[in-house]
């Protein structure tokens, strides 16, 4: 119990938030690493997943990517990259985080596109829409909830993995846990863990709210047609 009170004391003391190794800086680093990785992963994965889904090809590829991603430990990849050619540093962390964000993004956007009612696509074609129009005005809006779910999974995964990045001397909130364990400062370990947990839950909740907000449109449309 004393560790918990110690952790809360550490969290509520102003000085632990300030400075180059304070909570504010570490939080900023964590968000930077997460944002950059998810951004790059989206730029790479969404066109691939959406493209494959639109064409209806490469399904096994899209699905196996995420199965392999699950079997490979994030920790192992981080360490392999760190002692390998990339060395310690932010580039390594962002590379590893991006790799792990790609899998859920590709899979979910692919599945989202494939789950679009074939009848809706047929109808759109029958109305004379071109392939690009079908993609933009029918498939994408209908696949959006699934794509956003992929984004949410990817973001939560990246927030979690960014914590492990502290092992390879990366920044971020995981540093409090890893350094705290090394220096036997239990209040920091637990305090850091609380921060990480809260951040992950916040990101999850915010993206859930966002997907609710954005996927409201197709739902009302379907209600009107029913």
């Amino acid at each position, binding site marked *: 119990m004393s560790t918990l009170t110690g952790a809360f004391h550490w969290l509520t003391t102003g000085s632990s938030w300030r400075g180059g190794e304070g909570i504010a800086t570490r939080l900023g680093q964590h968000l930077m690493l997460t944002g950059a990785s998810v951004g790059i992963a989206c730029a790479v994965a969404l066109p691939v997943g959406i493209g494959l889904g639109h064409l209806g090809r490469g399904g096994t590829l899209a699905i196996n990517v995420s199965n392999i991603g699950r079997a*490979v430990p994030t*920790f*192992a990849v981080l360490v392999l990259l760190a002692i390998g050619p990339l060395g310690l540093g932010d580039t390594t962390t962002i590379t590893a985080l991006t790799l792990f964000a790609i899998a859920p993004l590709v899979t*979910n956007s692919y599945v989202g596109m*494939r789950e679009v009612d074939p009848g809706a696509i047929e109808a759109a074609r029958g109305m004379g829409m071109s392939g690009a129009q079908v993609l933009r005005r029918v498939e994408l809006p209908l696949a959006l909830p699934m794509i956003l779910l992929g984004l949410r999974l990817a973001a*939560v995964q990246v927030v*979690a993995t960014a914590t492990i990045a502290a092992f390879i001397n990366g920044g971020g909130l995981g540093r409090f*846990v890893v350094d705290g364990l090394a220096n036997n400062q239990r209040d920091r370990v637990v305090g850091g863990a*609380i921060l990480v947990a809260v951040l992950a839950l916040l990101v999850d909740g915010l993206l859930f709210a966002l997907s609710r907000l954005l996927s409201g449109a197709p739902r009302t449309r379907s209600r009107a047609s029913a």
Partner: protein
Amino acid sequence: MAIVASGTCLRRNAWICGDYVRTRSDELWSATREHISLTVSAVALGLVIAIPLVLFARRYRVTVAWIGGLANVLYTVPSLAFFALLLPATGLSRTTVLIGLVAYTLVVLFRGLLAGLDAVPDDVRESARGMGYGPVRLLLTVEVPLALPAIMAAVRLATVSTIALVTVGAVIGHGGLGNLIYDGLNESFKSEVLTASVLCVALAIVADLLLVIVQWLLTPWRHHRRRQPSRTSQPSRAPRGDARGDGTGGHAGGGQAHGHGRPSLAGSPPGSPTGPATGTTT
């Protein structure tokens, strides 16, 4: 040391080094054993807790949302934070890692088992009841066999993710092969890191294959049926209709043997909140 003298690949710090595997086989073997024992205990304990929980949730439907929400929170908290949060209670022990792992398997298994049982068609259940089946017989001889593919999919997912997750336990000294990866990081020992990582992935693949075989043995009726159908030539059409029916959440979809059930796994974690959401609007 004799080790250094024996191998040049060790001195060169090569990625692939037979001498490393030979000289440290004891260490590798004991790490692998710890890895396997943590995984097996976590999945077994997860099942032991998940089964009564699922039965309870099915009996009292109101609790599904509560348990599901709690499961989501557990699943979202990063593993490293989870282990660290348990420190005040259980210290730097194997128990800390095991509790964390059980929590994650529990989430996957609870969702998978529930979705699998829920996907059993109502008319099948009705017919069984009409034939005089009691609740226990209905569950054991009708519902569980029909839900087996989904249940096994959940067990496989739980096992494979646990094998990957065990490595993070290295932070408190009980990470199986993760301990070697952690040591290798501190010493920049390339072959140690690569060997342990490869063993990890190999473990996951072997475990998954074993579970596929178990599933094959448990569901003999599925192989007889597969020889006949002509609709397997159009696999993309047929299962899609089913998948839409029972929603994106859960591992419910049948036909997971040809990889069509997989997408629902990717969508499953937050699938529980989206499921009811679409249900209420329509």
